[in-house]
């Protein structure tokens, strides 16, 4: 009965509505674009240098399949970008990268797709190593060598070579740095804080156990430990509460520089500066702060995001049946653990180009 009337109003409203949306979108277009005219990928320079062993020479064409978790934070985004940049630098490499996902089930399907495509070598950074072990083993069984990047598979049958960071070493080096600095200052019973990353990840546990080990060398202990979520807002939230819990701190290790932005914000908002902080992962922002030396952040322990570029190189060598340049022998090592360097004001310039933003 009133349908015709309401249809009329509908049309007018819809027109008005779409005009509003259109306006919004227009405004949107204006504000967004042209951000960051500074170059973002310092990867190529880091990648283009490196070995001089004759392995750079053009070889057999290799198709590399690449699967990693969703690039939802700085470090992981850099992983994917570095892999792509490295593959692009070789004319004999073709990279089949699938869209990153944090859904284990989806990642399994993606790897299966890559197996079906019969790529020559697979590079897999599993969201969860245990969950992807079976499918990786399928790939190996199908004759496709797998380069396991960073998060480890459960069985050595599931990969040809593992390459990744050293979470234990990261914590260890952070602990050693904090321990030594406090010892040098002559602090007797220091109050040491630890802001961990996502607590149910294996890597977080390893980092924390390394940290304890490093501090133990100097006879120190972690006084307060709280976990954030690798995000700036969780870091801010946790740190603002930790600062209430301890009215005096001597040193803090924060596992991740992305969440560190929030941690530092909390420290500034609380007006605290009686302690020093060590970061983790090695973001560009953190390194710039260390260089400027105007905040509590005095050092960070690197978890190299350019490891994915190395993984692509390793995958290429496997595909071309070559060994590693400076090592004796024709076969690639089965495992490569990358060093977690401690970056301070003194050596920061050396690491800034490889940092992720």
């Amino acid at each position: 009965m009133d349908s015709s009337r309401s249809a009329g109003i509908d049309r007018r409203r819809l027109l008005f509505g779409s005009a509003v949306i259109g306006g919004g979108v227009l405004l949107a277009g204006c504000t967004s674009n042209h951000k960051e005219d500074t170059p973002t990928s310092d990867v190529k320079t880091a990648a283009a240098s490196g070995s001089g062993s004759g392995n750079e020479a053009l070889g057999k064409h290799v198709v590399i399949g690449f699967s990693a978790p969703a690039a939802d934070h700085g470090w992981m985004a850099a992983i994917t970008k570095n892999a792509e940049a490295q593959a692009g630098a070789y004319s004999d490499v073709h990279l089949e990268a699938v869209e990153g996902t944090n859904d284990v089930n989806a990642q399994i399907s993606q790897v299966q797709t890559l197996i079906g495509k019969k790529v020559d070598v697979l590079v897999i950074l599993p969201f969860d190593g245990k969950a992807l072990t079976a499918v990786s083993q399928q790939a190996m069984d199908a004759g496709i060598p797998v380069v396991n990047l960073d998060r480890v598979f459960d069985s050595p049958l599931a990969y040809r070579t593992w390459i990744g960071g050293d979470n234990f070493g990261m914590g260890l080096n952070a602990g050693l740095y904090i321990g030594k600095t406090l010892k040098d200052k002559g602090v007797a019973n220091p109050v040491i804080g630890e802001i961990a990353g996502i607590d149910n990840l294996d890597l977080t546990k390893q980092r924390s156990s390394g940290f304890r080990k490093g501090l133990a060398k100097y006879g120190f202990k972690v006084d307060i430990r709280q976990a954030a979520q690798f995000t700036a807002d969780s870091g801010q939230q946790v740190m603002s509460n930790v600062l209430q819990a301890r009215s005096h701190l001597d040193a803090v290790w924060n596992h991740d520089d992305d969440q560190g932005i929030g941690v530092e914000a909390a420290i500034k908002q609380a007006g605290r500066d009686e302690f020093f902080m060590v970061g983790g992962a090695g973001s560009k922002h953190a390194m710039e702060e260390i260089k400027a030396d105007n905040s509590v952040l005095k050092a960070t322990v690197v978890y190299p995001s350019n490891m994915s570029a190395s993984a692509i190189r390793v995958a290429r060598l496997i595909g071309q049946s070559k060994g590693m340049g400076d090592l004796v022998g024709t076969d690639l090592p089965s495992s490569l653990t990358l060093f977690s360097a401690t970056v301070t004001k003194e050596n920061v310039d050396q690491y800034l180009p490889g940092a992720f933003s």
Partner: protein
Amino acid sequence: MSQQTRPPDGSGPGTAAGGTDVPEAGTARRSGATAGRSALGRVGKVRNLGLIAVLTLLCVIGAVSSDNFATRQNILVILTSAAVIGVITVGQTFVIIGGGIDLSVGAIVALASVWCTTVATQDYGFGGMVFCALVVGAVVGLVNGLVIAYGRVVAFITTIAMMATARGLAERISDRQSQVVTVDSFNSIASTRWLGVPVLVYILAAAVLLGWVLLNRTTFGRRTFAIGGNQEAARLAGLDVRRHTVLLYVLSGLCCGIAAVMLTARTTSGASNLGDLYELDSIASVIIGGTLLTGGRGSLVGSILGVLVFTTITNIFVLNNLTTDIQQIAKGLIILAAVLIQRRGNTPSTA
């Protein structure tokens, strides 16, 4: 959310079914209107008292377990922690009382925070950034509202789609990197204090006060309750249900925009992973605050008490250096307990 399945204006295949239950719905509304209002008010007050009791209990636990709890400074930290999620919860309360749900709040916060921190936007300084965040929030809310009210898509579906879209867009714009804010006046939103109290707490107080007046003292508020209670009856009573629904989602989006400004200043950065799971936090707060998930009933004060309960728990756990898993269990049990109490509180009034 049952009313969402019915087309709002009664045209289309739902007419026959809608037609039959209109009279009874109408009478139910009329008879329940006066008697129900006062009973409702009483139940709401009782529930708020219950929440205040829980909060007091938590404070006692906090004060006993840690010397650092009952300090002025720590209370301010709790209030500041509650500020961001509190402002979001104000909008969420309106939407849920109005019979909808907004699952996209966390993603809207992320999108607004990313958008207002792009290099281009930061060039406009303080005003430009705040304006951008508010407009982005409101426009996303508008899109939600239009799709739900005029596109007749269920709120749950629409906002879950928006959750994915807005977060994706945020990732796209930021290129998944944290965008550090270099405009000091913007960051000072989080560090400035008036009379010793952080500005963020004032913003929360203002949002709650305005929200309370809007909900309880204006026609807009009464319409919200009416539409959430029975959409069909509200329409027959001459309310423009669709327009009002759009406004509710715009309000929620705007609250997210404000929250984005606060969160961005607090973390001194915009990132696409900000506001993760805020939708669940805000909905949980609304529910333990005594608002019915089906709409039509609720209390803004309850929602804010809910937020305070959650932030206080977090604070106590950190002060005592306990791990997050225990914290999660405690939160879960509190939600469950609140819902059970809520059900008991409702039984007599519906019988």
